[in-house]
């Protein structure tokens, strides 16, 4: 399997362990990623607050780069995934708008064709029949006994028309991956909710409350760790967990992994190789479960 990899910004910045573990997962699975080094930030639904056409032009440019590479595009961030799919929908559903966007792209040598490449989150790729078979064949260290709580990230689920999950209100794709890795999925209500990250600069208390409610729900449901496909969710749930812990009477402490870290652990990589020592909430308690 060979894909154009859209890394997104945060996997190159505040969650570099996501990039590291993605590349280790790919290496272990024999997946070839061609990094899209000239692709811009997706805008995270924020650039479109300023100028919707600008956001769509930047993202159509990104998709056109994958089209030029002749490779399906893979994201490792739920937000990037949803935002790129939104642009695809905006441009594909309105021929006049598509022409307008392509006029903007023309001078740069790019043209968005549409319908030529798939835009998929890494979790969607692993969740295909081919992906699950590959995982099944390559698991070296089954994660037996590890209770894992998926946290999907809003943008891969909503709006449901653009989601790649069959039932976005009750998705099972990540949990299916967990089972193949030998882990035990924990189903809890908050797994499809918002982590609060988009308003962390505007309404910190509400943001932390949202993240805290999800973490406590996962803990109360018996999870050993939360696993997310979104680096922004990871920041909200891990980097700000000390604040969340202080806000909650019951306290709150649970490691949060990126999905590729969980995958690569099962492929036999060590936590250090996957940057798990970079997490704010220590993941060492998971070592004991997996020992």
């Amino acid at each position: 399997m060979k894909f154009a990899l859209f890394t997104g910004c945060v996997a190159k910045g505040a969650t570099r362990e996501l990039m590291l573990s993605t590349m280790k997962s790919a290496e272990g699975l024999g997946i070839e990623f061609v990094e899209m080094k000239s692709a811009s930030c997706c805008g995270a639904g924020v650039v479109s607050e300023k100028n919707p056409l600008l956001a769509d032009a930047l993202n159509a440019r990104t998709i056109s780069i994958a089209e030029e590479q002749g490779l399906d595009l893979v994201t490792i961030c739920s937000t990037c995934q949803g935002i790129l799919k939104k642009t695809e929908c905006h441009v594909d559903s309105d021929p006049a708008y598509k022409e307008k966007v392509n006029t903007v792209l023309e001078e740069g040598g790019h043209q968005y064709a549409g319908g030529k490449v798939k835009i998929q989150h890494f979790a969607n790729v692993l969740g295909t029949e081919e992906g699950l078979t590959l995982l099944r064949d390559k698991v070296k260290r089954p994660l037996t006994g590890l209770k894992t709580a998926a946290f999907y990230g809003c943008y891969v689920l909503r709006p449901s028309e653009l989601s790649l999950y069959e039932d976005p209100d009750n998705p099972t794709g990540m949990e299916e991956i967990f089972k193949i890795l030998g882990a035990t999925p924990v189903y809890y209500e908050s797994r499809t909710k918002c982590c609060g990250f988009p308003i962390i600069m505007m309404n910190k208390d509400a943001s932390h409350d949202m993240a805290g409610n999800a973490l406590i729900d996962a803990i109360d449901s018996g999870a050993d760790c939360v696993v997310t496909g979104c680096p922004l969710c990871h920041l909200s749930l891990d980097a700000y967990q000390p604040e969340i812990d202080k806000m909650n009477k019951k306290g709150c402490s649970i490691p949060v992994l990126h999905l590729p870290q969980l995958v690569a652990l099962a492929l036999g990589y060590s936590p250090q190789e996957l940057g798990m020592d970079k997490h704010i909430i220590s993941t060492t308690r998971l070592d004991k479960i997996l020992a």
Partner: protein
Amino acid sequence: MITFKIKRYNPEKQAEPYFEEFQLGETDDLTLLDCLNQIKWTLDGSLTYRMSCRSAICGSCAVKANGHAILACQKQASQLVKDNDTITLEPLGNMKPIKDLAVDFKPFWDKVDKVNPYLQPSKKSPEKETKQSPEQFKLIDDASTCIMCGACYSDCNVLEVDDNFLGPAALAKAQRFVQDSRDGNTLARVKELSKPGGIWDCTHCGECVERCPKPAEPFDRIKEIMTVALEQGVTNNNGARHALSFTKSVKSSGSLNENIIPVESVGFFNAKGLFDLLPVGLRMLFKGKNPPILHKSIDDVDDVKRIYRELNE
């Protein structure tokens, strides 16, 4: 046979809500509301819920089915059946139940009222009608379809933790006036809507779009107000500064500069805001998790800059 597991509540008889199950045999082609009526008319006359038009026009019959808000008259019961042929019904969220599936809409209406949901023209009323072009009407067409059913309000992730948030329905209603060509109060409106509890407190979860039974799709309307607020220069708040800083960062390097955006979002002269950023910043620095100090541009950033120029950004 479908089992309806309904959350019952009557504070005059029992303080705590409880679930009661009802079963119906012939449910083919029946909407969920038809089923509720069957239960009320044939099994338990005390079951309480709101309804009126039965045609997805009045917005009265919104309830939570299997955890998510829907209009009971808009969905076939057979489409909602989950495991064990059961549908779980609860009152809408984020509002207090009054009895069974009926909730108190007062906070919802109070918030709609707060956005001044009526035209405030700057000119004197014309002798005849005020005309709108199809393009002008298109800007407010979607928001105008809102039937005030409360489904978006029920499932809003921010309202679950912050009562102060105006919520998706009121903000969608606000957009309908912010972008109405006949209204003369745009600046004052977006100033008010940019305050805490307004547009910038929306967390982008998309639940409101998912639950909206009409094309009103509140999150998209909220974003339209944000764009107008920025165009009108209402930028002295963290949300607007964040949008401007983000857009500027992508312009200069093609990617996010995560070190600069938090600082620019709270404002360079906001001592408390900057101080609040310190703990997480230091924590990340200590773990070697801080974004690189030297921010790297993407390849071919010049093309991104050209796109910005072409779109006058």
